[in-house]
């Protein structure tokens, strides 16, 4: 098969030059063979073509599975893939009469396994992993040896009774078989457990075991294979001792190789600043090299690549740009998921091969029984020992899941396929049994583990939004606990961690991390950054929902962005967190996953009310500018991080301003008066309480103004007659010198508009705001309002305007109440953040005065809002 295709490939490669040669030497003897314009060269592309086709089929299958949500919720994907593989294998067999495609050990170990293990290592929750390392190691080493020995010996014992009939195997063959069937398989465990979502401790123990037991499996496999080869009579004590020594060499050697390459990778990634494009490549290539190197030195390759991923992740993630980081994440996930898909499908296909089957009911059944029973016994025994030392006890339920989660998979199959038929005479029996075991564990246990977990009420992992407080307290805990250990004079877990992190900070980071990354790389900062990023993402998502992304993209936004990013506010921005992070990351890369989650949570709140409140409340600053409303009002506030928040605020303001433009225009006559009132009010204000805080807010409100004017007025420029443009430019320029605070600019602007052209203005306003309603003209006003600002605006319109202003705060409250059933935590956070800093509108004497004014001079909510921020 292979030779044929190799020849085909060769021929194909030669075809081109030959064809060219023919062309150049026309006079040559081959005149009968003319140049073919199109030629069919199947053999030329056959191998890669078939591979690509298989990958395509597997991927398509995944799509098909997920079409039916019902099926995937019950049946794990791995099981479906195996079944599909069997079906496909059947088809191929029927067509070809020969099983041409199987999962070969070479392909599996060199191409399919590394991406999965690298993915596991690179995204390993390190803290959890090292926190449970002792437990994991015990299960991985002792557990695997126990399983291998008991399964092999029990099978041999039963064989001696004669139930299985005549086999050509000695005790060593059975032990060899036991050793390869004993190991829990990382691929299968990942595939099944990722869908089950058990709590993280349980997951890390089962998964960590499946990763680390590779060393044991490899050693046991090699030892017994060589024992089988040299024959049972030649096995001496020295050989056994060699086997034990080789275990340590293989496992520690593999780990060291991994750590070495992790160091190398981190170091390289420190200097990739100018080759950002190939940055992700280094991650894959160097980790793959660690795998191959370990394989070359006959050390544990899985351990090598696992530890390479585990050790490098921190430094690499800090060093590479955010885009590269996203690339790495997605490429890794894609490759791992693809490899997993192919593995399971080919496991199914490989099973359809009459040549490998050899049925022995007793042997197969007993193997199934033994591996299950001994797994349970092993887990219970080890947990009993462990629980004496663990602070977080592993309970009976956990033990059940751990025993039940001992899935066997493709590693066992590949190992058994590697056996030499000349030495291991019952290879076919072993292969068939392994296939049955793998199918049984993956399909049957994979199917039932979900209901089992639900039935036992195993603590599930919950995805929580990262909370700043949680992180801060967590950090405080670490320090407290290590201090308590110091004080009470014990060397415990926290002590070691503390020392390690000191060492890491002092030496490793300096060598392995970029200087800028050293600065910004702090978990708490990351969470902070993440939260800010989320707000920013929701800002974009919200803009899109409103259909008015146009104004986000419009020049006015650049303006906004400039305020935030490019023109640093003196002395504050430099030290701000987001500045730090930006410095490192360049353009902020919105992580796709976060984006997705965000979208989802927004979709949850789809109804219009929520929508409205979102608009109203989402874009509130994380930081409050005016310190008097932050707890403990006496603190002078020079909040540095306002970059994101400024933007949010601006958006909100501009949004509400649009609303209120409609209103004022609606009012028509009142506009002039209104302008006067606001102006007067404003000029009165600073005299009242001109302290530090007011200064701050004034300054910021002028910023807001700037952007409002930008966001609303720049767009209408296309529509407005030039006379209307004037006030805008005036305002704009007046805003530029910040001392001059033009609170009234909006009203001024409106006032200077000719009341006769409200239609024009209004339409353009709608355009910027809500594209859908653009065509419906004037009537759409009501619909727009009822859609977007039901509560507030419709009330304002229909109930008359006299005291709507007074009502406003109550309505706000009402809105908040309605919001109570919000599902999105972020929205809740933002919403209450908004209410949290919300000042007291009615207590200000100026406003009281305003309230007593005639109805016609209703102050639009927006300018009210501005007043509020000044208080």
């Amino acid at each position, binding site marked *: 098969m292979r030779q044929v295709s190799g020849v085909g490939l060769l021929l194909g490669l030669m075809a081109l030059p030959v064809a060219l040669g023919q062309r150049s030497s026309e006079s040559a003897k081959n005149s009968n063979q003319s140049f073919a314009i199109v030629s069919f060269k199947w053999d030329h592309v056959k191998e890669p073509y078939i591979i690509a086709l298989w990958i395509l089929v597997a991927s398509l299958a995944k799509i098909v599975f997920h079409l039916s949500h019902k099926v995937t919720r019950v049946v794990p994907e791995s099981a479906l893939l195996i079944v599909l593989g069997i079906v496909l294998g059947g088809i191929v067999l029927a067509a070809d009469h020969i099983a041409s495609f199987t999962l070969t050990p070479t392909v599996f170990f060199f191409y399919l396994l590394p991406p999965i293990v690298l993915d596991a290592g690179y995204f390993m929750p390190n803290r959890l992993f090292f926190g449970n390392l002792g437990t994991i190691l015990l299960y991985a080493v002792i557990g695997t040896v126990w399983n291998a020995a008991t399964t092999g010996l029990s099978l041999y014992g039963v064989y001696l009774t004669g139930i299985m009939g005549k086999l050509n195997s000695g005790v060593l063959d059975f032990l060899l078989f036991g050793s390869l069937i004993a190991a829990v398989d990382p691929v299968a465990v990942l595939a099944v457990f990722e869908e089950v979502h058990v709590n993280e401790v349980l997951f890390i123990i089962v998964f960590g075991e499946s990763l680390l037991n590779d060393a044991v499996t490899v050693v046991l496999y090699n030892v017994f294979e060589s024992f089988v080869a040299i024959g049972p009579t030649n096995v001496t004590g020295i050989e056994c001792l060699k086997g034990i020594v080789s275990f340590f060499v293989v496992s520690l050697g593999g780990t060291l190789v991994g750590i070495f390459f992790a160091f190398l990778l981190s170091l390289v990634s420190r200097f990739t600043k100018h080759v950002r494009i190939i940055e992700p490549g280094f991650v894959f290539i160097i980790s793959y090299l660690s795998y191959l190197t370990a394989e070359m030195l006959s050390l544990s390759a899985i351990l090598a690549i696992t530890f390479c991923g585990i050790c490098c992740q921190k430094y690499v993630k800090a060093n590479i740009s955010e885009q590269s980081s996203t690339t790495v994440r997605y490429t890794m996930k894609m490759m791992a998921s693809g490899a997993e898909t192919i593995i399971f499908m080919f496991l199914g296909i490989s099973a359809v091969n009459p040549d490998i089957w050899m049925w022995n009911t007793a042997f197969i059944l007993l193997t199934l029984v033994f591996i299950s029973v001994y797994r349970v016994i092993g887990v219970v025994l080890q947990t009993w020992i462990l629980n004496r030392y663990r602070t977080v006890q592993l309970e009976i339920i956990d033990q059940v899941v751990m025993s039940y989660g001992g899935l066997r998979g493709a590693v066992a199959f590949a190992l058994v396929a590697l056996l030499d038929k000349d030495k291991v005479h019952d290879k076919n029996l072993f292969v068939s049994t392994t296939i049955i075991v793998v199918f049984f564990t993956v399909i049957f246990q994979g199917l039932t583990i979900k209901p089992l977990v639900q039935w036992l009420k195993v603590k599930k992992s919950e995805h929580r939004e990262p909370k700043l407080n949680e992180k801060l307290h967590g950090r405080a805990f670490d320090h*407290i606990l290590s201090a308590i250990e110091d004080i009470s004079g014990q060397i415990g877990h926290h002590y070691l961690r503390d020392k390690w992190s000191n060492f890491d900070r002092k030496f490793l980071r300096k060598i392995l991390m970029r200087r800028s990354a050293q600065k910004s790389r702090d978990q708490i900062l990351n969470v902070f950054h993440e939260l800010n990023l989320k707000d920013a993402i929701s800002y974009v998502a919200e803009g899109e929902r409103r259909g008015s992304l146009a104004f986000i993209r419009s020049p006015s936004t650049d303006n906004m962005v400039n305020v935030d990013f490019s023109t640093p506010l003196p002395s504050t921005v430099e030290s701000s967190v987001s500045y730090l992070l930006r410095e490192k990351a360049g353009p902020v890369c919105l992580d796709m996953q976060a984006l997705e989650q965000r979208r989802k949570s927004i979709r949850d709140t789809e109804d219009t009310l929520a929508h409205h409140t979102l608009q109203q409340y989402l874009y509130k600053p994380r930081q409050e500018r005016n310190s008097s409303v932050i707890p403990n009002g006496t603190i002078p506030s020079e909040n540095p991080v306002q970059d994101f928040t400024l933007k949010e605020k601006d958006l909100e303001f501009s949004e509400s301003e649009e609303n209120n433009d409609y209103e004022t225009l609606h009012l028509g006559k009142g506009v002039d008066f209104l302008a006067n009132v606001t102006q007067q009010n404003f000029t009165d204000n600073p005299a009242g309480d001109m302290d530090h805080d007011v200064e701050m807010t004034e300054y910021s409100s002028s910023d807001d103004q700037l952007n409002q004017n930008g966001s609303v007025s720049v767009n209408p420029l296309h529509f407005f007659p030039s006379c209307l443009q004037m006030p805008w430019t005036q305002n704009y320029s007046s805003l530029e010198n910040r001392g001059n605070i033009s609170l009234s600019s909006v009203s001024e602007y409106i006032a200077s508009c000719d009341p006769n052209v409200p239609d024009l203005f209004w339409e353009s306003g709608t355009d910027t705001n809500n594209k859908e309603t653009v065509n419906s003209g004037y009537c759409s006003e009501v619909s727009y309002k009822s859609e977007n600002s039901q509560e507030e605006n419709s009330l304002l319109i229909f109930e008359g305007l006299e005291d709507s202003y007074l009502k406003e705060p109550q309505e706000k409250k009402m809105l908040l109440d309605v919001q109570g059933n919000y599902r999105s935590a972020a929205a809740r956070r933002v*919403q*209450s953040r908004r209410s949290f800093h919300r000042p007291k509108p009615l207590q200000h004497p100026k406003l009281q005065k305003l309230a007593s004014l005639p109805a016609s001079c209703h102050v639009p909510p927006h300018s009210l809002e501005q007043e509020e921020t000044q208080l």
Partner: protein
Amino acid sequence: MGSAHSVPAEMRELADRTGFTSEQIEHLHRRFKQLSQDQLTIRKENFDSIPDLEFNPIRGKIVHAFFDKRNLRQESDGLVDEINFEDFLTIMSYFRPIEMNMDEEQLDRFRKEKLKFLFHMYDSDHDGKITLQEYRNVVEELLSGNPHLEKESARSIADGAMMEAASICVGQMGPDQVYEGITFEDFLKMWQGIDIETKMHVRFLNMETIAHCY
């Protein structure tokens, strides 16, 4: 084992009160004597002699907590100058791991005690509220281990956390409400769903096996 036999009654009483086993108490007593240089009480200066503490960014707060009367289960408020062994044990007992045989109520009390300790550490002016300023101080100290981080960043993080706390604890606030600080009830609310019991503990050496070697 000698001292355990000589003062069994006192030992048992301590064990009852703090929940430590007598072996653990003995071990801690040795440590206490080491720290106090064979005095009956420990003063703040004694903690300076622990070299490993030096790098702890919130070292001051932790040491402070040892002398906080609220943590020592005393009625009054304020600080003491020196603590005796019993006080030392009391503080240490905040960090005991949970035991298997605890019922719901005990667990709850246990949890609250632990949180109270943490709360007291944050609430440095003893007014029952973690104000923004106090929170900022803590965060600044926490992050002081990173030389590249400036105070401003720490402050803004504290502000962000305070916002978050306010949103979690109060949720919906009236327009004229001002969030003044995290009270203990709020603090409990913030910790809902996070199993602090499994986090805030130190494995005090169980001396059972080692004690026989003496």
